[in-house]
């Protein structure tokens, strides 16, 4: 663990009451390695380590802690602060509220759409799912099967109607039938695919979502920063959801994406089944990223 590695570093240096610059430099090397191993973006790590170094040099080592533990404490606090406070879904204003899920191919959007629908239904809302992925083979069937499993209706119009039209019709239907929440499942896409990003802008324009949620796979590596930037520039994101956190991926992409977009992390996907969703908790994710 990071604490063990830092312990090794500090054993070689003299024990002092305060963390010296030499202590901190040696420790920062280990912190940098741990964060890169956890898939935090190279440039984000650089800024982060610089900030931690500033807070650590000259800092008193608390009575109850070893110097190594003191550094880990500072790193952990800084991580938790950066990851940000948990934030609920924005369901304010007139219904129906529209939640739009976006992200790369295979990140877990369709599953997360159903997970959110189940969660909302259990908390007294009346959600409707929208099959706006007109490209992936059997995408509509996938969402329909999930909708049936949780007793939430699915609006679909086949694969020949544009996604924006499907979404717009779904919102109108929701208004007519008094659904409280419209959950738009969109097709996976690359942030560099201009045509597909235009489609997303169109969907956003005709549905005016109260939430645009970027779905990010916990195992995403260095490019998480560019992916998030790309989506954020075309459709202003309001939240992040990290999926597949039930594996052993450290999830450093969460820090990178949060850092570069400033958008709050709202939920975590913790398994393949529809109840497997948890609200984001910064201290748990921080511990995981640190390893």
């Amino acid at each position, binding site marked *: 663990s990071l604490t063990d590695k830092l312990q090794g570093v500090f054993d070689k240096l003299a024990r002092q009451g305060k963390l010296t610059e030499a202590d901190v430099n040696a420790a920062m090397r280990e912190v940098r390695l741990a964060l890169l191993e956890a898939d935090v973006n190279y440039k984000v790590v650089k800024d982060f380590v610089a900030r931690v170094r500033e807070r650590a040099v000259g800092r008193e080592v608390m009575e109850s802690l070893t110097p190594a533990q003191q550094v880990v404490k500072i790193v952990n606090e800084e991580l938790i602060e950066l990851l940000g406070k948990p934030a609920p879904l924005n369901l304010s204003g007139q219904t129906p509220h529209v939640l739009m899920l976006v992200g790369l191919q295979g*990140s877990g959007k369709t599953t997360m759409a159903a997970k959110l629908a189940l969660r909302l239904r259990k908390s007294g809302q009346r959600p409707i799912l929208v099959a706006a992925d007109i490209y992936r083979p*059997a*995408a509509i069937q*996938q969402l329909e099967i999930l909708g049936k499993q949780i007793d939430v209706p699915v609006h679909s119009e086949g694969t020949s109607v544009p996604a924006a039209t499907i979404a717009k019709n779904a919102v109108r239907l929701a208004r007519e039938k008094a659904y409280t929440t419209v959950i738009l499942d969109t097709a996976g896409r690359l942030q560099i695919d201009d045509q597909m990003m235009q489609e997303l802008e169109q969907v956003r324009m005709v549905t005016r979502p109260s939430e645009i949620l970027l779905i990010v796979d*916990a195992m995403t590596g*260095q*490019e998480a920063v560019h992916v998030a930037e790309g989506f954020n520039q075309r459709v202003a994101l309001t939240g992040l959801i990290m999926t597949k956190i039930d594996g052993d*991926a450290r999830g450093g992409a969460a820090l990178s994406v949060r850092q570069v977009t400033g958008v709050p992390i709202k939920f975590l996907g913790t398994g393949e089944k529809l109840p497997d969703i948890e609200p984001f908790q910064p201290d748990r994710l921080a511990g995981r990223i640190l390893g």
Partner: protein
Amino acid sequence: IFQANEITDELWEELEETLILGDVGVPVAQELVERTQKRVERENIKATRDAYLILQQEMVRILTPAEPMRIDDPRLLTIVLVVGVNGSGKTTTIGKMAHWYKNRGRKVVLGAADTFRAAAIDQLKIWGERAGVDIIAHEPGADPGAVVFDAVRASQESRQADLLIVDTAGRLQTKYNLMQELEKIKRVAAKQVHRAPHEVFLVLDASTGQNAISQAKSFKDSAGVTGIILTKLDGTSKGGAVLSINHELGVPVRFVGTGEQIADFAEFDPVAFVEGLVG
């Protein structure tokens, strides 16, 4: 970035940064930079461009497979098992692979052994239609081993296939019972056909970071992975984790996925790949 023609100390940090940004990972990045430094010294290299070429050579050396694929060996029926974590691109890749091998004269059959995920069988059926190949499937919820058994027998008997490609459900490598299920699927194939499965491809999303190594290790232990198919290389991620996978585990990349259409599939070219990473 300051572009010197003569090698300076900044170059080594620049190379390491480029590799890490490409998801190569710190240990292998450092090793590659060290190897490059040693050769630059030994071979009296002066120009930055030549240092880059040496780095690329060292990377190609790691990525070049030691042996050809078994899928091309002459035999009555070749069985290929496709495995990997959730959403990596397995089902789509199988559609592409079916098309690829059908165009090369093979008689291909697909086995729909993902009986768990919603509409997984429907999805593979559509790919089978696009590729023009038969699919053996049961109902959702059926035992994947039973599907494999059926697919093998149908390939041998009614379909006269010489290549069976089996789709499996996505699974995170940390889930013990799911990894056990893969071992069971392998045993079913092995009982029916000598030395089957002849190829086990781990489908790996190019945007995956260092967790790719943990995936490769676990799937190698449980499923006996013989090759990697690197998908979504049409995105901005470079897929550098395959360098560690080759370096540590000796598992080579065999194919790449470069899009969502049936023809977005190609044999792995180490030189082109390396140029994309550090060109």
